[in-house]
């Protein structure tokens, strides 16, 4: 309990419970079994983006990927366009993931090779990608995705959406193991904590970050595939606002904006909190404006809380005999 990161987890669980209680008070429909499936329907897309954003932030720099939502829109359109042009859908999905990786590589090139601050580099590509998504389609969606493909995001197994079982949960577990049990994870934390020390002890800091930006692009592709399966159409604005939401989730989950601190479990809890809040407000028929305000307050509040935790950690480090 004395560990600030554990305290953070307790705080997040408390927040999740509070969101559930608020949901139950706001709407009589909230405390029903069907709500679980309905709620989890929204989790995977936002969740995987939040996980990718967490990794980019963890590796430090400071790292951030503002283009992640735009990449998602663009990949979704690419897959739908390829399918319309006669490419088999599954092959189109694979190509889509490659495109996502390449779009991520552009970010990686700007940030890790050209040493452009990540905020500026990915802001520029956000412009370029979201503009391309709109311009190439003239703003209209591409439809015609067959019904069988809809199973991924519309089907349920034991009342829980299939993309929850097959994509989000496995990815979260895999990333958790990677971060806590493998050398790559150690290197990511090291790079985020002290870039120079990590470099001097042999971590290829910039190569690692390069890979993580590419990974974020691929994950944006995964999110695009799930959205495609969900709506059976690709919209040019599918990823709008996702960049900010994914940053909010990563930060709320305890990932430090300058890297080095954070856990996958925190991000997962944060996704659940944000989604519960959105669903509760939606069920209670409360204006979307309050959702935005609540997300804004959560974002700022969680960083303030975060800084307090960091302060405490530093104070303890000073007290400890070295």
């Amino acid at each position: 309990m004395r560990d600030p990161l554990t305290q953070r987890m307790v705080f997040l669980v408390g927040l999740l419970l509070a969101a559930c209680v608020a949901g139950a008070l706001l709407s009589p429909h909230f405390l029903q079994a069907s709500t679980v499936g309905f709620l989890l329907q929204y989790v995977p897309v936002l969740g995987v983006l939040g996980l990718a954003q967490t990794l980019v932030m963890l590796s430090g720099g400071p790292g951030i990927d503002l283009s992640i939502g735009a990449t998602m829109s663009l990949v979704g359109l690419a897959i739908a366009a390829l399918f319309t042009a006669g490419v088999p859908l599954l092959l189109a999905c694979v190509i889509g993931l490659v495109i996502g990786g390449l779009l991520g590589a552009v970010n990686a090139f700007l940030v890790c090779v050209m040493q452009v601050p990540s905020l500026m580099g990915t802001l520029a590509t956000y412009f370029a990608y979201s503009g391309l998504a709109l311009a190439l389609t003239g703003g209209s969606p591409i439809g015609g995705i067959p019904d069988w493909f809809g199973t991924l995001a519309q089907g349920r197994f034991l009342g829980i959406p299939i993309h929850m079982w097959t994509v989000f949960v496995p990815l979260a577990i895999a990333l958790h193991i990677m971060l806590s049990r493998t050398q790559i994870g150690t290197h990511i934390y090291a790079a985020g904590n002290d870039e120079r020390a990590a470099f001097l002890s042999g971590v290829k800091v910039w190569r690692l970050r390069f890979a993580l930006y590419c990974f974020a692009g691929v994950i944006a592709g995964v999110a695009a595939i799930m959205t495609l399966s969900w709506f059976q159409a690709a919209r040019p604005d599918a990823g709008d606002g996702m960049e900010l939401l994914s940053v909010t989730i990563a930060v709320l989950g305890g990932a430090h904006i300058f890297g080095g601190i954070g856990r996958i479990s925190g991000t997962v809890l944060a996704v659940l909190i944000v989604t519960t809040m959105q669903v509760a407000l939606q069920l209670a028929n409360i204006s979307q404006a309050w959702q935005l305000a609540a997300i804004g307050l959560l974002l700022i509040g969680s960083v303030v809380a975060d800084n307090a935790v960091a302060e405490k950690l530093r104070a303890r480090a000073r007290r400890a005999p070295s």
Partner: protein
Amino acid sequence: MPSTPSRPLKLGREGLLLAALAVLCVVFASQSEFFLSERNLTVILRNSVDLAVICAGMTIIIILGGIDVSVGGIVAVSAVLIGRAYQYGAPDWIVVVIGLSAGAMLGAMNGAIIAKTRVPPIVATLGTMYIFIAILFLVIGGVWISGLPNTLSFLVLGEYFGIPVGVFVIGAIYAFSWVLLRRTPWGQRVVAIGCDEVSARLVGIRVDRTKIQAYALLGMFAGIAAVLYIARLRNVEVNIGTNIALEAIAATILGGANIRGGVGSLIGTLLGVLFIKLTQNGLVLIGVSSLWETVVIGGLLVIVLVLDALEKRRTE
């Protein structure tokens, strides 16, 4: 830096931008005879006024080492308050005061969060952006405010001695900002904080106070932009201000400001604004869909960032 015989003259960012603007004008003029007409140039100018005003403040904030992605939200909230004030029959001067003070207060709120809680500016202003948009929705209720009076329209649409009033507005704002930044102790403090915040604190500069003031100034400029926006269009849309922050940051970076703080140029920023607005206008005139303009701005930004990085690498 040792001077090499192959590069006797340093062009500087402003010179480069001027050259780029000239090239752009030649290209667009060769494709559309309407482009260089007096009427079209006036249209470009009118469309640039609100962005230009905001960019003066954004330059100061970026020199300070900060960033504000919530300016669009500030413009939106100020505009919607102005619209409501008009609907209650408030006279012009009260409307203007409301617009400016609302902007300044929201800006000061950003500054206070950033300075007092040490939340990184990008995160803090992302958060307040959500909050401002929420306020906009709550006040506007999803319906446009339209048919506002045109008593302030001369600020954008009028002419003095054949020169559009917008020129005077931009001139006044930039002259004020330049004097503030380059000729007052306050401006020196801003540059000092942008170069090295820790040292600035150590030499006794009241960093927090200066930050709050700077963000309040940007907020006030956003309030002015809201007044100009309403003067120009006489309505408040639901999606007002969505792209302003990104355009403002793009123009400022194009103009030579360094996102890491300490470096920036008001003249460069103004040229950056012109560059963006000329491109948007020119693309439409030569028949390219306006949907391409974000692609062009994003692409330009990528190119400029890469060029900056190459330049930095060569000088090191």
